[in-house]
């Protein structure tokens, strides 16, 4: 199933977002009156130079960092009007995160890293968590790596486990910060494909912070943030950049 974002209501709306750091002369404005709408089933890319405020915007939209002003409505709920506990519950129910570092527990196997989220987050039984973790690992092409620990996995495999950890609880939002930064393009491309599939197949709303232009052809929408000001780039760049393989993959569009 392919979700066509343009025909549905946005799952995440934000407007008037401002955020600054420091005081006096050291004060920097990371976000200046930023507004954005994100739709389900869309893989959106947030680009911009270093220090442009990309990660800050991701943190504010995902409920991790309080903005100075502005509102964020996720599933029509005002994220920043919630209590800390409510926000945590919202993240538990709806959000997945992928960070630059893999941040996997060194002592736990790939399977345990995923199981942990289901058992602790969703209260699944050990056997059910294991079944789902194995299912996810096989989707990620890691079916035979379930018993390996991070040290025994390559960078690409580790990032795929991290993606699995973000996706295993079927989030409606997936926020990723430079998920391909530590990977060569071959592995980076796999990661991008997985994220795009999560949007298109599962209908998740995906926002990825990146500065690698090679990701642009895979994105449904591209946003540029420069000096705290957001602008939307070309919509559906797929149509312009896609190679024959991509076109085949999207034959159903």
């Amino acid at each position: 199933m392919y979700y066509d974002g343009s025909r549905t209501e946005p799952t995440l709306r934000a407007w008037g977002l401002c955020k600054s750091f420091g005081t006096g002369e050291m004060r920097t404005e990371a976000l200046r009156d930023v507004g954005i709408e994100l739709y389900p089933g869309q893989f959106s890319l947030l680009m911009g130079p270093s220090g442009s405020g990309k990660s800050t915007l991701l943190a504010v939209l995902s409920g991790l960092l309080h903005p100075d002003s502005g509102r964020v409505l996720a599933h029509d709920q005002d994220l920043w009007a919630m209590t800390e506990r409510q926000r945590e519950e919202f993240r538990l129910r709806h959000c997945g995160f992928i960070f630059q570092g893999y941040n996997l527990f060194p002592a736990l196997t790939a399977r345990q890293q995923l199981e942990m989220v289901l058992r602790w987050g969703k209260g699944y039984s050990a056997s059910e968590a294991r079944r789902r973790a194995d299912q996810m690992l096989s989707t990620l092409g890691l079916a035979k790596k379930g018993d390996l620990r991070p040290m025994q996995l390559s960078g690409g495999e580790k990032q795929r486990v991290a993606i699995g950890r973000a996706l295993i609880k079927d989030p409606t939002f997936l926020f990723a910060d430079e998920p391909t930064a530590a990977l060569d393009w071959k592995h980076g491309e796999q990661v991008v494909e997985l994220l795009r599939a999560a949007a298109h197949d599962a209908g998740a709303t995906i926002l990825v912070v990146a500065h690698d232009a090679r990701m642009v052809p895979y994105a449904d929408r591209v946003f540029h943030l420069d000096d705290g000001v957001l602008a939307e780039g070309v919509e559906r760049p797929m149509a312009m950049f896609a190679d024959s393989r991509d076109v085949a993959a999207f034959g159903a569009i």
Partner: protein
Amino acid sequence: MSYAISTLWHERARFFPGVLAVAFSALLIALQCGLLLGLFSITSIPIDESDADIWVAHPEVPSVDLGRPIPEAWASYLAMPEVVRVEPYMEGFGYWDKPTGGMELCLVIGSRLGPGAMGPVRQLTAEHRALLAQPGAIVVDEAEMGRLGISKVGDYTEIVGKQVRVVGTVRGLRSLAGPYVFCSLETARSILRPPPDQTTFLLVRCRSKEDIPTVVERLKKYDRKLMAMAAEDFSVRSRWHWLTKTKAGIALGLAAILGLMVGAVVTYQTLRSATVASLKEYAVLRALGIPRRHVIGLVVGQSFWVGLAGIAISIPLIHSLAIVGNIGAKVLLPWWLWTAAISITMTVAMLSGLLALRTLRHVEPVTLLR
């Protein structure tokens, strides 16, 4: 297998110092206290190695070796159906004239020796008892012979001017203060010269062990100037007196506390560094909305397993060191000491874990976004 155990096993090099620290603490507490108990159990040997159910004494007697004269006529209080036997027991310190020159303070203990007598220590054989019936016959511990300046059985010497003869030796009855000198009631009287009709203790045997509390209670009511205690209670009273009076207990106790503190600090540092090393992973879980209690449970779980592993290592160590210790000294490890050592070290390990939890305050998912 829980995530805490997985982590502990796969990062065992990291957790090892904490495990060792817990083991060290448990070892120190158990052995220090065991040595202390062993040391002071010596003071109650006359009670523990004899056969009386109840000891009747002067109310101000703090310990079995510090007896004071009481009227032998108190025996009349004991004319009750629950009591089957009463006998006097003489005891007191006297100067031993060393044949090699000099004096040594010794503790003279005189009791009845006949069949069914309660006073003699178990180490005195039938042969000893027969020999002790002779006036002036005494038995000492063979390890004390050098201290007493005698070289063999049959040697003569004087105690407070009264001639005595060593007719035999026993083993394992060395004393903390003056050496024990075992003899008959008559020999003890002739050495110690108590006032007429006085004794140091009255030993009581009851019809059955169940009668002991009844008899003790009744005796207390008869005469407030009289102290009657079950043998076990008098034994504890004697040990406790020396434990507190000599301050040795305090010194060893402080050493144990010091060990515990070292253990606590190392365990805390170990758990803290392990927690700090995983702060980013915990931050991811927080970002995913995993309730904080699970992460807390993981850290506390780690401290529990560190504590348990440390205790598991310490148990065979304590056993073997106690065996080694028993060669030159006496180490007593009653069940309650095991329980106390294990619970205290476990509590300290858990507290270290709770302290390490403070580092979790630094877990902020937003720090993962650079």
